[in-house]
């Protein structure tokens, strides 16, 4: 039994451009007479989500993820095709944007709750729980214009969380609130999954898709590329990201610097094999120097998709520090056990000498890690075990 069905859905946006030709000091009369340009945000998208299933949608910026969310939550309508929804659907979006600043927290709960489709009696029943979940007990009868931004967002999220929908849409909403609140939200999502609710998760974060979803779909420029298990879809997504980006040659302004990074590559022990969690990895950094450099440090910084630093390979611990001669060379880092989880990582490389940065290439390469030894968590910790007694 499907809960959600998209049948050849397309969405076209008409975009009104202002002309660039005239000087900005003379604003044009109006741009409304110009013929708008067409932009297809979705092209012939069909998929089904079964009841109780968690379905993930991945894709790059502009792939059409947000458009799907807007169509499903009825904010916008498709240009062609049909969408069938069984039961109550709600999206955990920025509900607080519907708050009226002059109304108190309690009044806003009633206003926004009914905007989301709850009846008055239903809200009256849940209001205490909403207030408690958002932890705004003392301020509930104060106009929300006096709220801190955190309280504002928490209250909004809390209302949406109490909707108790049959189908829940999530669009990278977990970025709201502090850590305690985020934990509450994740807990809620897990409870909803356990209760058999259908979930559609839209995210860049392949880790979240892998953890939370039963099936996933890859979108690219508004078209469905593939639908399948999260592992397959993420694999395809990452391979698409790698296309044309694998290995990055840096040849620009090599002459002006005393040294520069040329190339970084990652490989498993066997050249034919992909890099896998829990197995050896070799990182080779090629460089060129135009003079003798003392106290040299090579760094390879590895970033999560979210942009945070995940790990570093460095020669900073060498004693004495390295010394390089003019000409080109290669540093090889050998990791006996690769501890990071499968995923696609961005990489920075840099050369320092005497504490000064000589050359730095930011986000210049991709490191793709394939599933190897499967564990939960962010890292694989290599361990041996022994049983006593």
């Amino acid at each position, binding site marked *: 039994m499907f809960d959600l069905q998209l049948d050849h859905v397309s969405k076209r946006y008409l975009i009104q451009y202002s002309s660039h030709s005239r000087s900005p000091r003379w604003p044009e009369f109006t741009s409304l007479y110009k013929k708008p340009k067409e932009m297809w945000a979705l092209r012939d998208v069909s998929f089904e989500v079964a*009841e109780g299933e968690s379905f993930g949608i991945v894709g790059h910026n502009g792939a059409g993820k947000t458009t799907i969310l807007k169509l499903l939550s009825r904010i916008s309508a498709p240009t062609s095709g*049909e969408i069938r929804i069984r039961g109550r659907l709600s999206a955990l979006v920025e509900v607080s944007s519907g708050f*009226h600043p002059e109304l108190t927290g309690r009044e806003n709960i009633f206003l926004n709750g*009914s905007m989301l*489709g709850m009846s008055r009696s239903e809200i009256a029943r849940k209001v205490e729980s909403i207030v408690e979940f958002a932890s705004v007990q003392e301020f509930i009868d104060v106009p929300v214009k006096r709220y801190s931004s955190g309280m504002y967002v928490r209250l909004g999220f809390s209302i949406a969380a109490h909707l108790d929908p049959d189908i829940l849409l999530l669009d990278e909403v977990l970025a709201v609130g502090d850590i305690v609140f985020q934990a509450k939200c994740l807990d809620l999502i897990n409870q909803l999954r356990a209760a058999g609710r259908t979930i559609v998760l839209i995210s860049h974060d392949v880790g979240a898709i892998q953890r939370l979803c039963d099936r996933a779909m890859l979108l690219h420029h508004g078209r469905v590329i593939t639908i399948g298990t999260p592992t397959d879809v993420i694999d395809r997504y990452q391979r698409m990201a790698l296309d044309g980006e694998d290995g990055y040659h840096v040849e620009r302004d090599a002459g002006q610097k005393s040294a520069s990074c040329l190339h970084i590559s990652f490989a498993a022990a066997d050249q034919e094999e992909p890099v896998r969690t829990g197995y050896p990895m070799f990182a080779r950094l090629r460089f060129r120097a135009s003079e003798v450099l003392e106290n040299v440090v090579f760094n390879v910084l590895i970033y999560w998709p979210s942009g945070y630093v995940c790990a570093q390979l460095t020669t900073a611990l060498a004693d004495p520090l390295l010394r390089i001669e003019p000409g080109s060379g290669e540093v090889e880092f050998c990791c006996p056990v690769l501890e990071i989880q499968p995923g696609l990582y961005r990489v920075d490389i840099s050369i320092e000498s005497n504490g000064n940065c000589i050359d730095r290439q930011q986000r210049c390469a991709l490191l793709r890690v394939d599933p190897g030894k499967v564990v939960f968590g962010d890292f694989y910790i290599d361990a041996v075990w022994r049983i006593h007694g």
Partner: protein
Amino acid sequence: MEPLPPAGTDGSESLKVRDRSSAAKERHSARAIAPSLVDREHPLLGSRIAVPRSVSVIRPPSFSLRTIVSGMTTLFGYRDLLCTLTFFRLAIRYKQSLLGWIWAALQPLSLMIIYTFIFSRVARVTSEGIPYPLFVFSGLLPWIFFASAVSNAINGLIHYPALLTKMYFPREIIPLSYVLAALVDFAIACVILTGLMMYYRVPLSWNALYALPIVATLSAFTVAISMFLSSIQVRFRDVGVGLPLLLQVGVFAAPVVYPLSAVPSRFQRLYLLNPVASLIENFRRVVLHGSGPDVGVLITSGSISLCCLVLAYGYFKATEATMADMI
């Protein structure tokens, strides 16, 4: 493990316990078969009533009878929102103001004084034997209702773009809530009208009850205009700029400050095709003169209003789906 029956009770207690646990088991297995019909308990969300889910279909927007019917069904489901929103509109309007609700009465009263001065003292307009202040006040009430509802409603949708781009509810609720709020103001002003009638010793007859269908028709027409214009306003902001001007002139296209008899009789039929004009004239007739309404004229304006309402609602629903893209 089945709990043992406590000593001193007969078997019924343990039977109950067993019943409950087997019911839980049944529920568990039923969940696998037809989960949507099972009462699912959730610690945070509370228990929910098992209702078969209905399938809703989202199609490209179109101007059709089906759109209108399904729109009305959805609107009915959101009736609580309409009430809440109207209530808060009224509550917010006079928040942080010293005079508060007195403003609802002060607005028509001040206009009454100004118009009385201009049209009765300076221009000497006749008023069918009724004291001019009362005459103009009875015309101003429905006019202010119409004008303030429309001018507030058209800006309602564009006032909070986040509402349109972040969440869905039937958009017509926003213009509707402004019309309803204006209707409440109208009711308050009607109390003052009754006070004025007592002051000027103008008797109130049973015919005044005809005001109810008259006001209902006027409301229908006001809703139609509000929905039509607010939908256009989302696309072309010209409406918001041009409307105040139009309304300032519009007051003279209805028998507000002058009696219907001042209109040359050969233009009267054309003049009364405007529902606002004919409804104001009939409102004054049944309330102040205590005579019956002009049924023929009422039926005409009723049909015009109804047609406008259906067309405007259809248009609104057809354009609603792309409002979030256009705003």
